[in-house]
């Protein structure tokens, strides 16, 4: 008790500042004054920022020893207060960003002190590319982070992989954390439209983001324990700075169009095709008299608009940031659209010198008009490709033409109505109390509340519904998180120590409701109550809880040696017998360039880092571990229950152990700098659905089996070839190399997923598996000769084969002793084509990905080009199975028709056209595997920033106009719409598959940034 009163009296003393001294000064760089530079009294939150002329005025408390001056892109300077009242401070550009603040989960540190693997993307990058979402902002900016926009669907899912794929059945997406609150992510739609999922993160307004930090290795991500295995994306929203109130207005407007269209047969060509395969030019759909190029009708030039307005500022005690924005993306398929309205208010207040409180609150409302797409017989792109051009849009009587049971794409666009309205409130409140200098407690309470309502009406004019079908779905996910962090930091001698311990509690509650009703009186009544026959009504609850305790210690010595230790334990309601998991991480760094003996040897920065840690993945269903009876197995409208799940009470986390070695360097006045990192990442105890004999009544049970390894390099290089007063050229290269290998599966048994993807030991996740096309049979003699290969000429080599058909390679006669194809003991070829002749024929994951940014600035004019590349991956182009099948009434691409085999001696690329495809030329094979590598000019921006002299005369702080293009140029051998594609969206296991996917768009947008 005595000690407590001593403590308290100390606090009372240090609370009573005496306001004494006013100092003035200016901040500049080599070229002139810097406005909005931040000046803060060291060790306090008292501060201000410079005005237009770079000047500042600040009243400092007694005992203040120094000022800390920061400006984005410049090295932070500390100015000792030596009794003078006027200071001129010249900042030096920081090409390497060593002084930039990096957010590390429950704290921050200087970029130069980081010992783990963290990538940072700041607000300029996000802001400069209009229409960019949260995830796409990471694309090509963070080495080792692969961002795949799986389609051109507005508001649809974006796949993000940090250093490869670690998991097969749990999630592979990173954990997103905004201002300390783990975000709800994923797809909450209950109404399938084909392939493309929703993306809960599309709700967030990128304009509000100050910075994104990606924790890539386990020594840093271990602080998020059981959710850290796929990396952690920490998002910090903008906050106000003391000083003059800033107003910013950004507007952009543009248009987008399809990158290319696929040439398919016109009506005359289609009739030739019918004539050849059916012997009747007017067969079935050939009887229609239209000549429709469907792709022209479904694609249009959609607009993209983006407007945002923000206010920020404050004084020494209270700071604020308020932002409003509107985003509208019409997509390139008519009737698809994504609109987002958002508002954010961030406040922080210094109640007294001990207690600070704050609150960040963001509200977003999005409206998403969806179309049916991808793998869907009512999908717009599907039908536009596969429906023959003989079918007119409308019949003579004005009704929509129909055929094959498919949806007329124009009818689909005009009449299918699918709207998703989402509301999201995301925020946190915190209080931080500093007991004594260096010892503080922070209490935080955060929420992320998501509500999604889907309203679909399919009028009777559509094929999919003869009497009208209405569907409504409602999902709410309410998450709260509550955390306590006790922080202590101190200096002694040349050492600094920063220590955190904390506890965190989190709960999710997900409620779903779904109702479908048929038989509407007319299409004017679209509310569910109007329908006569309810067909489906379901509702469910799901949820989980986490209880976590963590500690973190950062030690540094003389700005040369750095040591970080992290530990977290997570308890999860998802597991039964193994509720708690333990996740350690440790890393160390040595800044060699700060050693005395290195000074003057040409290195501005030379630092080596090494880290090790363990993280977990609990991204499985909330109730997977339980053995359950499930309801809903109803018969004749009477309730039914069945055993739905065998369960596994022994389930535990997937554990990822990662070692990271990195080197950072800067030479030639930091004009050349960068990082090179190597990692090896082993994931054990994969949560796998172990397939069991279905004679049990179950297909699988979830167990911890299997191993995956990722190894790779992350490279980031910055180079400033020219830096003069008027002209500067910056180059930055980001590249990631990743090699993925499945080391162990249940009893080595491969798992087939997607269309042609096989997961097998010794192969990477996403490998394609199928037959190998050898050649095309030219005559019956070749077929007869093959039939005799197995020693019996009465059994065919390939049943159904005729001249003009593919000959597939005889690879194996069976799986051999181990029962697994593609291993060393496979039997020799047996002269027959069977399942055993399938082999690994491609790879859906790239080995190299990255981006190259070139920025040329000349007096206010800036050209910024961002090239994105992917190398070493294949795409399984499943479109061709149908569009080039030449076996039925589906339409055919021009190239397949022109290139088909017609007679003996043809050196054809495509087999013969024949009804029913008796040889099954369309089986999964190398025929559909294409090189998916590409290099594309992802973003090019030309901008002009008006000089300060002009701005001052019109009273503005900032005025920038720009025009930017996306996806302007692409070099690829991929033959379908676009190589940046994934039919299965965020799929863990079947990446790089294309099946009638909504393609990417090319866009041109013009915009303006104004600051007051």
């Amino acid at each position, binding site marked *: 008790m005595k000690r407590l*009163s001593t403590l*308290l009296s100390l*606090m009372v003393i240090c*609370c009573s500042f005496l306001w004494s001294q006013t100092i003035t000064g200016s901040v500049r760089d080599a070229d002139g004054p810097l406005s909005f530079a931040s000046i803060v009294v060291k060790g306090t939150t008292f501060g201000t920022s410079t005005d237009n002329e770079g000047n500042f005025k600040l009243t400092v408390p007694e005992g203040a020893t120094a000022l800390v001056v920061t400006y984005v892109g410049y090295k932070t300077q500390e100015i000792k207060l030596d009794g003078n009242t006027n200071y001129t401070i010249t900042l030096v550009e920081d090409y390497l960003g060593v002084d930039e603040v990096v957010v590390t989960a429950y704290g921050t540190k200087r970029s130069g002190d980081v010992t783990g693997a963290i990538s940072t993307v700041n607000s300029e990058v996000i802001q400069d590319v209009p229409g960019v979402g949260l995830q796409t902002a990471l694309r090509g900016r963070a080495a080792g982070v692969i961002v795949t926009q799986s389609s051109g669907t507005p508001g649809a899912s974006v796949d993000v992989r940090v250093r490869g794929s670690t998991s097969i059945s749990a999630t592979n997406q990173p954990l997103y954390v905004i201002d300390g609150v783990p975000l709800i992510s994923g797809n909450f739609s209950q109404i399938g439209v084909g392939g493309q999922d929703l993306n809960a993160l599309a709700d967030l307004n990128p304009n509000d983001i100050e910075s994104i930090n990606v924790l890539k290795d386990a020594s840093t991500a271990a602080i998020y324990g059981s959710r850290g295995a796929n990396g952690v994306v920490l998002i910090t929203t903008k906050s106000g700075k003391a000083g003059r109130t800033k107003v910013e207005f950004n507007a952009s407007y543009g248009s987008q169009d399809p990158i290319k269209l696929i040439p398919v047969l016109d009506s005359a060509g289609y009739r030739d095709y019918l004539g050849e395969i059916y012997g009747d030019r007017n067969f*079935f759909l050939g009887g229609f008299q239209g000549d429709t190029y469907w792709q022209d009708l479904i694609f249009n030039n959609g607009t993209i608009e983006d407007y945002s307005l923000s206010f920020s500022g404050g004084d020494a005690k209270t700071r604020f940031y308020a932002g409003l924005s509107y985003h509208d993306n019409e997509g390139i398929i008519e009737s698809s659209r994504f609109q987002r309205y958002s508002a954010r208010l961030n406040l922080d207040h210094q109640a007294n010198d001990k207690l600070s409180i704050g609150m960040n609150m963001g509200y977003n409302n999005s409206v998403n008009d969806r179309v049916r797409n991808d793998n869907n*017989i009512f999908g717009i792109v599907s039908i536009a490709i596969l429906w023959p051009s003989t079918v007119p849009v409308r019949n003579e009587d004005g009704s929509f033409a129909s055929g094959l*049971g498919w949806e007329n794409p124009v009818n689909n666009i005009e009449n299918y109505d699918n709207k998703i309205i989402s509301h999201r409130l995301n925020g946190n409140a915190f209080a931080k*109390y500093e007991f004594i200098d260096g010892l503080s*407690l922070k*209490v935080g309470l955060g929420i992320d509340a998501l509500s999604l309502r889907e309203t679909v009406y399919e009028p009777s004019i559509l*094929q*999919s*519904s*003869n009497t009208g*079908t209405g569907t409504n779905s409602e999902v709410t996910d309410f998450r709260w998180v*509550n955390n*306590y962090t006790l922080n202590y930091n101190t200096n002694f001698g040349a050492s600094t120590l920063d220590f955190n311990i904390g*506890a965190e509690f*989190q*709960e999710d509650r997900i409620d779903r409701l779904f109702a479908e009703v*048929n*038989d509407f009186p007319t299409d004017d009544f679209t509310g569910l109550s109007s329908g006569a026959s*309810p*067909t*489906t009504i379901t509702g*469910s*609850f799901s949820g989980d*809880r986490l209880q976590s305790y963590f500690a973190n210690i950062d030690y540094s010595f003389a700005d040369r040696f750095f040591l970080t230790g992290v530990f977290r334990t997570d308890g999860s*309601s998802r597991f039964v017998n193994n509720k708690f998991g333990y996740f350690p991480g440790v890393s160390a760094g040595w800044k060699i360039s700060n050693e005395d003996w290195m000074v003057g040897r040409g290195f501005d920065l030379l630092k080596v880092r090494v880290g090790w840690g363990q993280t977990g993945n609990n991204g499985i269903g909330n109730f997977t571990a*339980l*053995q*359950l*009876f*499930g*309801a809903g*197995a*109803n*018969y004749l409208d*009477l*309730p*039914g*229950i*069945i*055993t739905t*799940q*065998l369960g596994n009470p022994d389930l535990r986390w997937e554990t990822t152990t990662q070692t990271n070695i990195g080197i950072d360097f800067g030479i030639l006045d930091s004009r050349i700098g960068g990082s090179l990192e190597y990692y090896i990442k082993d994931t054990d105890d994969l949560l796998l659905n*172990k*397939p*069991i*004999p*279905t*004679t*049990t*009544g*179950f297909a699988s*049970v979830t167990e911890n089996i299997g191993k995956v390894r990722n190894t790779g390099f992350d490279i980031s290089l910055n180079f400033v070839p020219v830096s003069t007063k008027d002209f500067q050229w910056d180059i930055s290269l980001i590249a990631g190399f990743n090699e993925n290998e499945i080391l162990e599966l249940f009893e080595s*048994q491969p798992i087939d997923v997607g269309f042609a993807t096989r997961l097998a030991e010794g192969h990477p996740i996403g490998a394609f598996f199928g037959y190998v096309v050898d050649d095309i049979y030219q005559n019956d003699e070749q077929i007869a000769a093959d039939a005799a290969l197995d020693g019996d000429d009465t059994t065919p080599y390939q049943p159904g084969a005729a001249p003009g058909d593919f000959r597939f390679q005889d690879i194996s006669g069976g799986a051999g002793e181990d029962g697994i194809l593609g291993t060393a003991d496979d039997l020799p070829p047996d002269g027959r084509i*069977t*399942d055993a002749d399938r082999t690994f024929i491609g790879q859906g994951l790239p080995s190299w990905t990255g981006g190259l940014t070139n920025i040329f600035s000349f007096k206010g004019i800036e050209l910024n080009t961002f090239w994105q590349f992917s190398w070493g991956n294949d795409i399984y182009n499943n479109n061709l199975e149908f569009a080039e099948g030449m076996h039925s009434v589906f339409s055919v691409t021009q190239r397949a028709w022109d290139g088909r085999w017609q007679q003996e001696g043809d050196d054809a690329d495509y087999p013969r056209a024949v009804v029913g495809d008796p040889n*099954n030329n369309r089986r999964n094979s190398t025929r559909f595997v294409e090189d998916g590598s590409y290099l594309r000019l992802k973003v090019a921006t030309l901008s002009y920033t008006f000089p300060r002299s002009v701005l001052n005369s019109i009273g503005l702080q900032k005025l920038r106009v720009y025009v930017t293009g996306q996806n302007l140029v692409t070099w690829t051998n991929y033959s379908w719409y676009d190589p940046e594609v994934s039919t299965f969206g965020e799929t863990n296991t079947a990446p790089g598959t294309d099946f009638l996917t909504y393609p990417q768009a090319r866009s041109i947008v013009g915009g303006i940034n104004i600051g007051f």
Partner: protein
Amino acid sequence: MKNLFIYLQVIAIALIATACDAIDLEDVRPQNSIPVSAGINDKKTADALLNGVYDGLQDGTVLFDGFLALAQIYSDEAIFTGTFPSRFEFATLNVQTSNGTNAGVFSDFYDVINRANNVIELIPAVQDESFSDADKNSSVAQARFLRALSYFYLINYYGDVPLILSPTRSVAPDVINVPNDPQSIIYDQIIADLQFAEQNLGDGDVLTVTSSAATALLSRVYLYQEDWNNALSSATTVLGTGFDLNAFPYLADQIYGIGFTATDGNVLNFWYSPAECGGRHDVEPSPKFLASYEEGDLRKAASVLEVGEVMSACGLSDTALVPFVLKYDDFASGISGTGTDPLIISRHAELVLIAAEAQARLGNFTEASSWINQVRSRAGLADVTLDASNYMDLILQERLIELSFEGAHRYLDLRRTGRAQAEIQGYQPCHDIWPIPQREIDRNPNLVQNACCNC
């Protein structure tokens, strides 16, 4: 200041305590499921458990592919006009062990069996005064019937398969890796199950398993085993003395069928009917089948629609561009429609034809002729006289037309009479057995592949 500090401490401790309490890790449970340990403990849950078995037969794969499509396109009854490669393999008699639809059918039947085994094991032990022993026996009998039905299809498609009679509760190797059992043993179990059902069930509507339903299936089982006397006696037990098929209109003579309601409809008409009726038209009556109708057969209009006929069945005045099956014609709401057509398992006409065949096999051609002519006269066709040389042709023809598209009758008839090679183009003896899915062979070291083509 001092107070503030203490308050803060108190608040922080209170918050931590509250959070710890609120975050109980044991207390998160789904709403639509209960842990198995909570169990089946009263009549209500027991009834629901039985409904679950029926529900298993409504699953899309077993319903359409298992009971109907695969066997129909495999035989000369239908041709395949769809796109799915796995069905195409059946249509071309080239079923690979990797065939996914085949795997679905196999596993769906076993899913029903596991559900039935749950009923058979759990219901007798339920302690509920309102649940009498007779009611419990009736529930068990229904489950044993549905299990027998599933095994009947399994052995006819796949030959020797594992015989599993208790519900799966763990994944211990000896529990899950069950070896093949000989068909004869499984047939014995089917008969035992059906006899139990016969004895413990009463009457009921055609969508519930009744005693007659059990006897009717038993009659078919005996027929397949060429046990003519028992087949005849079971058939006549159901039909009774003085039975006249003409008392029922065609298809109104159902004994048992799997039912559907608007909230739980099926997709049968979706697969059979053409685009104009909102369907996908994957299975089309074969030209051979259409040609095998005799002139004036009244059954045709209720069974199929030919090219050029008006599609009034689905509310259209247009004429059909393709022939299609009409036995599943609940087009009310197109594809997502109500789809309430039942899947017919047994009809009186089948028993009449079994009686005809059994009598003929036993050499009693007068009785046999009288039975078959009940079917023919209802169809508006002239009587025939069966004799030793023509009876098999005429009975098979009658079965083909009468029972068309109601199950796997045609394929299994051709097979059990040894006529498959003669009637189905490209048919080899090895086609008599469908491959046990490779997935099952891979997962179960004790399971042996049967002698199928491509195996």
